[in-house]
């Protein structure tokens, strides 16, 4: 196996700035916070998306605005209990990869399929739910 080299926070920040010059970026105490605007398609809504990342942690991605799971509405698929987006499985992402080239486009894709899901109730982005978590989620749903 080819050993991979961890990309530094500064490199991640530089690439995010390069691809999204208008976005907001903050690096403090080894923690990167990025807020960018994504429009997954030219008829899609615009979403403010936040990414939080530390070198020793998985990137944490959430939609700042608009509210993607308003109360009283069904909960979108591929979302963690704390409303972070589930974008990849296992080792599909690792710290050698640029957030701007992986996590960001995957987020855009998530948002694209989220819109279709909202309109049709069908998720066509692929992916899967682990059975255990599905049970838990269903339980959470039945007891809000």
């Amino acid at each position: 196996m080819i050993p991979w080299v961890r990309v530094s926070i500064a490199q991640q920040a530089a690439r995010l700035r390069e691809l999204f010059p208008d976005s907001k970026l903050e690096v403090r105490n080894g923690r990167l916070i990025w807020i960018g605007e994504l429009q997954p398609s030219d008829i899609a809504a615009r979403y403010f998306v936040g990414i939080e990342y530390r070198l020793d942690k998985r990137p944490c991605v959430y939609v700042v605005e608009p509210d993607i799971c308003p109360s009283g509405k069904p909960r979108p698929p591929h979302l963690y209990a704390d409303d972070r987006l589930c974008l990849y499985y296992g080792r599909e992402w690792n710290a050698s990869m640029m957030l701007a080239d992986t996590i960001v486009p995957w987020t855009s894709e998530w948002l694209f399929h989220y819109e279709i899901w909202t309109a049709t109730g069908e998720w066509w982005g692929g992916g899967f739910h682990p059975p255990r978590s599905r049970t838990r989620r269903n339980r959470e749903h039945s007891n809000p």
Partner: protein
Amino acid sequence: MLTTTPASTARQLDEILEQVGGVLDIGEDLYEIAVREYQAVGQHLARPASRIARYSPQIYPQGSFVLGTMILPLLDGCEYDVDSVVTLNLAKESITQEQLKQLVGDELVLAYAKVLKECRRCWSLKFEKRFHLDVLPSIPDLELGGTAILLTDTDLLRWQHSNPKAYARWFQGRMATVLAEIKKSMALKLRASIDEIPDWRVRTPLQRVVQLLKRHRDLFFREDLDHRPASIVLTTLAAQCYKGQISVTDALISAVDLMPRLAAPREGTYQILNPVNPLENFADKWNEDPALARRFFRWTAAVKEDVATWTSATGGVMKLSTPMSSAFGESIIQKALVRHGQSMAKNRAAGVLGMAVGTGTLVERMTPTPRAVPVRSHTFYGDDSVG
């Protein structure tokens, strides 16, 4: 049918309108079955034992089936209506309209008794596979020559002039350049040669516009379908308006803009002339009953307003789906959006998906776009923290 994704920009409204057209369309399987069935009817009528074999019957499809503008009807159990013409080599003087219709009917009943129904102008064969085939008996129009024919009509004493082949040639001529371009890009994409792609598998923006207009009209006039503007009027005007746009949205915008102008009365009369026979005025009925014309203009104004709503919607697909559902029907829009989602998933799987820099907009990387980075493979996972 293969879709005609625009080459210039990643215009998603185009793709959704494309998908709406595709959902309404007859579909490749049913198309092929319909072709086989009308060919079988032709063989039956021309078989040696047939009493009309000596008049060398020729059968060919006509109307929306040939123009590639067919849509799912609102009524008739949602069956596609495939029109065909059978021409018997007989002179007008040697036969009456009634006799001609009976000759064809007598032969059809031998093979199709169970599915045969007589209509005003034609015989209708009902096939189980969601379509019926109308067979219009005709004879050559020797005065006009060429592909002109004369049709029977029990309500009218005179023979009716018609020339469906010439009309189809005119319609195809209006989109010939675009058709060639689409086939070229399609061949490139499928790594096939252009000759391997038959015209009927392709839909141009003009064909999609006609389909969308017809469907919008059907829903708009659903309470009174008998008085809706005729398909031939819509088709003719849309084709006259078409300027080779590659984008369905652009073609639709220009159609709703120009159609009312083309249909406006000239010197006090409505004149929508048959482009291949200027003696025929498709708007004849409007001159007898101007209420019909008013209905047409009321409808084109409504389409125009709807298109403006779709193009200015900013709240995302979910905000677009409601107004589009009232225009085309909820189930049609649901299916179209699902196909839209599937096509995005397919593009990612095929490795042709990109994300535009600066906006995050997903684009097909084969189309020229502002700088885009590829979207690599990944799996949306569940809601567990194992992620």
